[in-house]
């Protein structure tokens, strides 16, 4: 038997293509939602008031301490356990019906997960703001909110680019578990092709390469972002000395 038959790949390109599209959607939407939620939560996370800080740290503790696969299964399969949820489904309430959709549940779980990690990244970056900058903002008469908006957040969001790029790549790779709730993402497409043709090498190596290319593209994009927004922190280039 031939161990690598490229016609398995070329014959199923439309399915791989749809899978790629699904992977990109899941990753991008989850990252956007997670990032948007992370900024206010990070502000709460660094608050001095424990009533504000502790709920957020409990949230990040739970989502960073448990596997994303279990979180996804908890949301998708777990929802049906609640009687009020089933009642809402029977009444046809549109919001609660979303919890029967694997696509929504995956976005919900991935979004909550990446949000938790991003909260800690943003909060860590905010804590590292140079003391003098905050003092200067206060001396200029800025309110807490103004100082956050003008000084702390812009600089913290820049400085977190390297660690956030890691989170983005982990999210792309993490989205591979979407096939556990019947979604056909890249990995799901590979699993389907595998089971139809019994061709593990072709299908899994092919999508592995696609993931690899996507990762390289993300790494490249973040290099560009660093060059654009972190230029002031780059190591100083050696000055060319004039020849005497």
């Amino acid at each position: 038997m031939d161990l690598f038959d490229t016609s398995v790949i070329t014959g199923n390109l439309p399915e791989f293509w749809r899978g790629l599209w699904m992977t990109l959607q899941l990753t991008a939407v989850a990252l956007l939602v997670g990032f948007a939620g992370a900024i206010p939560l990070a502000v709460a996370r660094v608050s001095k008031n424990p009533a504000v800080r502790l709920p957020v740290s409990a949230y990040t503790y739970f989502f960073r301490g448990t596997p994303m696969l279990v979180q996804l299964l908890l949301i998708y399969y777990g929802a049906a356990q609640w009687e009020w949820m089933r009642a809402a489904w029977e009444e046809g309430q549109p919001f609660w019906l979303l919890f029967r959709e694997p696509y929504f549940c995956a976005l919900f779980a991935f979004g909550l997960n990446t949000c938790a990690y991003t909260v800690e990244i943003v909060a860590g970056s905010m804590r590292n703001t140079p003391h003098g900058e905050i003092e200067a903002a206060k001396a200029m008469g800025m309110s807490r909110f103004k100082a956050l908006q003008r000084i702390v957040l812009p600089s913290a969001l820049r400085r977190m680019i390297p660690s956030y790029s890691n989170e983005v790549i982990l999210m792309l790779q993490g989205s591979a578990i979407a096939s556990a709730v019947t979604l056909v993402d890249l990995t799901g497409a590979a699993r389907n092709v595998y089971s139809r043709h019994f061709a593990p090498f072709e299908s899994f190596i092919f999508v592995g390469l696609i993931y690899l290319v996507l990762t390289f593209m993300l790494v490249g994009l973040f290099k560009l972002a660093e060059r654009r927004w972190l230029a002031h922190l780059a190591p100083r280039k050696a000055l060319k000395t004039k020849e005497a």
Partner: protein
Amino acid sequence: MNALIEYSPSLFAGACVTLQVALLSLALAVATGLLGAACKLSPYLPLRLWTMLYTTVVRGVPDLVMMLLVFYGGQLLLNAVLDYFEWDFIEIDPFVAGVMTIGFVFGAYFTETFRGAFLSVSAGQLEAGRAYGMSGWQVFRRILFPQMLRFALPGIGNNWLVLLKSTAIVSMIGLSDMTRVADQAGRSTHQPFTFYLAVCVLYLAMTAISGYFLGRLTTRYNVGVRESHV
């Protein structure tokens, strides 16, 4: 709640499987990582290039894809080999496939951790060891390795926590770890939420216990190091 008590023995057995997979993968990953770090620091260019290829590919491909490849592809490859030698059929065990994959994947992360840690030990210390007449192995065992471990411990701790959570995907190739046990128990009792939540609590407990041991190790390997406070 009663269902949880009724199924607690199988959930406990699942937790043991999870721990076994995690600890065996850790051992494999640490061994691979030490080897990888040695290759990355070696003077031979081809060795360095191969290790670079390994760490890049592993970090660019999801561990689930790698695991499916090892589990299904490994079986096909094994069948081909067994056919060739006309041996009896051997089935690849999901446990073995899981441990191999997670060990291989995290070997790449440990390679980076150990490489950085080896470079952090000052060269003067090694020279001093040689000057005392120690052999290369003695310098490694008495001076390089214990100090390297101190620099590597934070990274090791991080990698371990990520590795522990990664083990959940072995349930997708049919191994009865605690996630899969929860899945089955949840279906038969119609209480999936309760069981998945129990799995989350078990993972959090494992993380907390590892935190305690990592703290003890850190104290042990930082003996005699003056801490600096800003």
